[in-house]
């Protein structure tokens, strides 16, 4: 573990910093999330959204659900 080859100079600060700073894989979380956000919306969602107007909002049953 003594090797210090200067690979990625920002990563050499020691384990203590891991708690304060997002780890190096953190960008992957955004990639996972963004990759779904950027997907084309399946037709099933467009169909559902088109149908919403025909569904009345809940009336008189504000509690319970």
């Amino acid at each position, binding site marked *: 573990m003594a090797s210090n080859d200067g690979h990625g100079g920002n990563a050499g600060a020691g384990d203590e910093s*891991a*708690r304060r700073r997002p*780890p190096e*894989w*953190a960008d992957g979380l955004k990639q996972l999330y963004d990759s779904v956000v950027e997907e084309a919306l399946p037709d099933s969602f467009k169909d559902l*959204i088109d149908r*919403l107007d025909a569904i009345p909002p809940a009336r008189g049953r504000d509690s319970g659900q």
Partner: protein
Amino acid sequence: MSGEQHSGDRRTAAEKSDFKRELTDVVPHLRAFARGLCGRPDLADDLVQETLLKAWAAQDRFEPGTSMRAWTFVILRNAYLTDMRRNRFRGEYDEGVAERILTAPAGQEEPIHLSDLHRALLTLPAERREALLLVGAGGFSYEEAAAICGCAVGTIKSRVGRARAALSEMLASGAIPRRSSGDDVAHSAILEELDEVAAGNGVSSRG
């Protein structure tokens, strides 16, 4: 087309159309959050559809001008917790996640792939996973995430910290469940945690 909207609705037609547009705009985000929570794309999309219908039914409770994304995420997570208790999700994850290399730590033979991260994420207890997703992927502040989860800001910080530590540990050691084996172990851990969550420790899933 009968466009009359006056039969007992509290909202004007313009407000309803604003609501619908905002709701439509957050669908991609709901899909991303749901995918992170439950792994399998088809089940995640079912969850989003359920969320949209619930949000639509509850639209009178949405305050115009506030965050539609935060509001619908609350609905989605509650639906998720309910479904989890019914065992609808059984430790399956997205086989379609790209085998893209995420990072190649020095001194490690195998680089970390995006799919590794995704599988590792799905082994986390539900409340830590959602906290990390909200903050680390969805870009919510700790305060916003706390509001969505109905808990204290300090609790969210702690969950995110623990989630990050667990993922770092798993990714560094390579102790990530492989596809189609070991999932049951990981998932039963999630379910155990959910029992606790559902029992009222930290999550208000009443109603």
